């Protein structure tokens, strides 16, 4: 009886702090989403935007069509990652770093580079092809579904898949592949009959993540699609919010509908993974080395270097060229090149303000976000708090909230709440937005890192009298430092390149470089956009290379 009472008392004591932590995280991570959902609770808005509007129907169809690139990107990413990890390809280290850099690079500047090459009317590739006797009209059109898909595939989706799938391949037992090879199977047969079946789960995860991220894409679609009336769900939301008078209720209704679909997809995927055996590492001792390959490795290396040259170097080079063009894309005018846009941008006080803002947002989100993510990861993995699973779910939920929707939610929140009015127009709001958007990635990476730290070390510290906070700061954090720094770098880069989350929140005094670049791009000042884009790219590359030089990345590179 007494034991039962004591247990109940413990139970009650445990419930309160658990609820407090859960409530706090929910407030931070979910309130902007709840604001959107509540704001969209209007039957007439649902009807007008979802049922009656053909524009919305077209936008939703386009979103799905564009997101369907995910399985193709996952497959291409898997093949490239497998080649890089498993085969002794010359220059493999350089290749892997190159794909890592491509993964880090901001999308919009590369989009500008591609538009110089593949514009239907002035694109240099089209002009060159049309000189051929058998080509009559333009072959490529960057302002189309195909063009947008190409930009995403080359600049983002495939590199992301490579970075994501490489660790899974690296951890896979090589013995089965070796056995197949020794039995006379060709590399293609090994891949098809051994590697692929073993990595189906990783491939499915990559595809689902890519599909959901594809539905959330914004800036490339706005810059390339909107001028020709090609809208996707996110640009339609942007359009509705920017209507005069604004159609917030419809924007929120549309956002809510898509959010339900995204959460449903992601939850179904989580559920699908649960309970299945996806083990690629067995307990029999494991071989993770390389397979042998003849001269074909030189050919594969050349092909991969060519892919990097075409998909990363080429648009980057044309971005540089574009920044010196008198009129972006017009090569045929007198004096097509000038330094004028560099002079104008660098002499513009708005640029310096934006540069400072970007650094504050990136570094602020990096420090604050890393601390929050580490704390949450520790609580989820180590604490005895109840509702940890719910906490884990809440911390993961912003992952399927598109940036533009998060921006709408935060904007509505700070402008409708008298207590939060001071937050509006401050850099703190932008830092906060970036932290929320990066919460899922940071928490998940740090969860895996915290799990690797033996509980005995913390127990020993506790026995010696250290409190939980001290254990966290003096034992756990130093032990997971490499991953902490990796998460920090990832959040800093996300803060530097983010557009969709911050575009509705930024004010003249808080405008970051990424939004300045976006504003230049959509207002027809693409020359200035190219200048700012190049500067943003260089800053991000510097951060990424510094991090890489310090050996900081999620996955260790292959040694060549």
């Amino acid at each position, binding site marked *: 009886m007494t034991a039962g009472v004591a247990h109940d008392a413990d139970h009650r004591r445990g419930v309160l702090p658990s609820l407090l932590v859960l409530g706090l995280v929910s407030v931070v991570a979910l309130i902007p989403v709840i604001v959107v959902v509540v704001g969209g609770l209007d039957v007439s808005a649902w009807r007008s935007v979802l049922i009656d509007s053909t524009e919305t129907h077209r936008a939703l169809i386009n979103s799905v069509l564009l997101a369907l690139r995910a399985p193709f990107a996952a497959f291409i990413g898997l093949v490239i990652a497998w080649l890089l990890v498993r085969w002794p390809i010359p220059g493999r280290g350089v290749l892997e770093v190159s794909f890592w850099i491509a993964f880090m690079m901001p999308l919009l500047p590369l989009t500008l580079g591609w538009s110089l090459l593949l514009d239907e009317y002035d694109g240099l590739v089209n002009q060159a092809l049309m000189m051929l006797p058998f080509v009559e009209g333009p072959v490529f059109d960057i302002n189309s579904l195909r063009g947008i898909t190409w930009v995403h595939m080359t600049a983002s989706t495939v590199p992301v898949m490579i970075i994501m799938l490489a660790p899974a391949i690296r951890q896979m037992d090589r013995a089965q592949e070796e056995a197949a090879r020794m039995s006379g199977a060709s590399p293609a047969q090994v891949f098809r009959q051994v590697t692929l079946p073993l990595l189906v789960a990783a491939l499915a995860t990559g595809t689902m993540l890519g599909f959901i991220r594809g539905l959330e894409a914004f800036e490339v679609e706005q810059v390339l699609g909107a001028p020709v009336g090609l809208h996707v769900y996110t640009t339609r939301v942007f359009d509705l919010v920017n209507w005069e008078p604004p159609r917030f209720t419809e924007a929120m209704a549309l956002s809510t509908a898509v959010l339900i679909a995204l959460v449903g997809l992601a939850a179904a995927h989580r559920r699908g993974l649960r309970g299945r055996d996806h083990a690629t590492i067995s307990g029999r001792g494991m071989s993770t080395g390389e397979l042998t390959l003849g001269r074909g490795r030189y050919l594969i290396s050349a092909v991969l270097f060519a892919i990097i040259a075409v998909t990363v170097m080429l648009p980057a080079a044309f971005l540089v060229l574009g920044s010196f063009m008198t009129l972006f894309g017009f090569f045929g005018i007198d004096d097509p090149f000038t330094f004028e846009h560099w002079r104008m941008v660098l002499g513009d006080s708005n640029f310096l303000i934006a540069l400072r803002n970007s650094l504050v947002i990136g570094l602020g989100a990096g420090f604050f976000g890393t601390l929050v993510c580490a704390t949450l990861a520790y609580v989820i993995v180590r604490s005895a708090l109840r509702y940890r699973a719910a906490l884990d779910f809440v911390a993961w939920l912003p992952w399927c909230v598109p940036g533009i929707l998060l921006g709408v939610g935060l904007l509505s929140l700070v402008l409708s709440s008298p207590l939060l009015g001071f937050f509006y127009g401050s850099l703190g709001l932008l830092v906060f937005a970036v932290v929320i958007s990066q919460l899922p990635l940071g928490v998940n990476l740090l969860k895996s890192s915290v799990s690797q730290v033996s509980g005995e070390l913390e127990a020993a510290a506790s026995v010696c009298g250290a409190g939980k906070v001290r254990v966290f700061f003096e034992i756990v954090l130093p032990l997971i430092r490499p991953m902490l720094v990796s998460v920090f770098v990832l959040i800093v880069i996300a803060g530097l390149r983010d557009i969709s989350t911050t575009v509705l929140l930024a004010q003249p*005094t808080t405008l970051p470089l990424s939004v300045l670049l976006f504003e230049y791009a959509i*207002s027809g000042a693409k020359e200035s956009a190219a200048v700012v884009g190049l500067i943003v790219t260089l800053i991000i590359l510097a951060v990424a290379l510094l991090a890489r030089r310090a050996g900081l990345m999620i996955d260790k590179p292959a040694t060549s």
Partner: protein
Amino acid sequence: MIARLILIGTAVLGGMQVAADEDAASRWAELKRAGAAEGRVVVAGPAFPGLRDALARAFEEDTGISLEWRPLTGGPGPFTAQLVRELEAGAVQTDVYIGGSTICYSMNRERPGTVDLRKVLVDPSVTDPSVWRHGELSILYGSPSHDDDFWCALNTAEWVMGDLFVNSRYVDPDSIRSWHDLLDPEYRGRIAAHDPRHPGAGRYTAAYLYELFGEEFVRRLYVGQEVANYRSYGELPTDVARGRYWIGIAMVQAGVEPLAKRGLPLVRVFPEDGPGLLTGGFGGIMKLRGGPNPNAGAVFINWWASRRGQEVAQCELMELSLRNDVGRADCVPEWARPVEGRDYPIHSYSPEHYFGAFRDYMDRLSAIFEN
């Protein structure tokens, strides 16, 4: 005796005038001091490259106040939408708005969003009616939240809208004699316009076409010919010059001229059945309620309306100033200057038009474009 009385009366009146002038001058000096103490002003305006730079440089040189620019990249709609929410939250971030003056009515639609310019315009060189082209300041009176004598916006320019342009590489400018020529099936999918669903040049041009030719024409043109809608004043002429579209409707000179000067084939066409539309363009200015720098905002508005401010604005926006003493008319392209003696059926910024026919057209146009 009578002569003495007249003399005394004249002296008194003259003294009063001198006192009033001195009072106005001292108020203006006091305002400049207060504005300089605030040190900065946040101005929202059209997103044309170079405009911010030119205004900031000249304004800072004249007043010592630094100018922070908020470019209206998505047009005035997004700004107004945000302003309404900022007003509700008491967190207005911008002091002054430059652009189409009728947007002032939208800003005051739900609650007072702008300040009465009678209290703001104090520089004697601005308030003097004789310096303005029509012998008076061009004020947009009243608002949904104010009385009829409320000074909602000051309009400082007047020009002929760039209703119709063609890319002469694809369309012979002489072949377009009537607006109805645009209904030729050859042009389906080849026409682009500034978006008539949003505030700005596109909406006024669509209303003008509605007035001239009726609803069916507007439907056949915009919907039947699959006109592409642009929000950006910069991208629309660029894509017409590039050849993505052959015909451009409602383009503005600050977007067109940098391309035309580089030899790109953009040619203004004046159809015989549509002589053009008079507009104030981006020359409207208003002071936002609750802005962070109220005095600096007021200084900027007086400066903008001064000779110096108008010279900068006229050359950057390429819109003919309403001030008589502003030179450099050569900054404004020939096609945008009103032709003496020509009858323009609509002045888009006249309250009669805005509150009369324009409102009716808007309701009808919304129905056309939404379906």
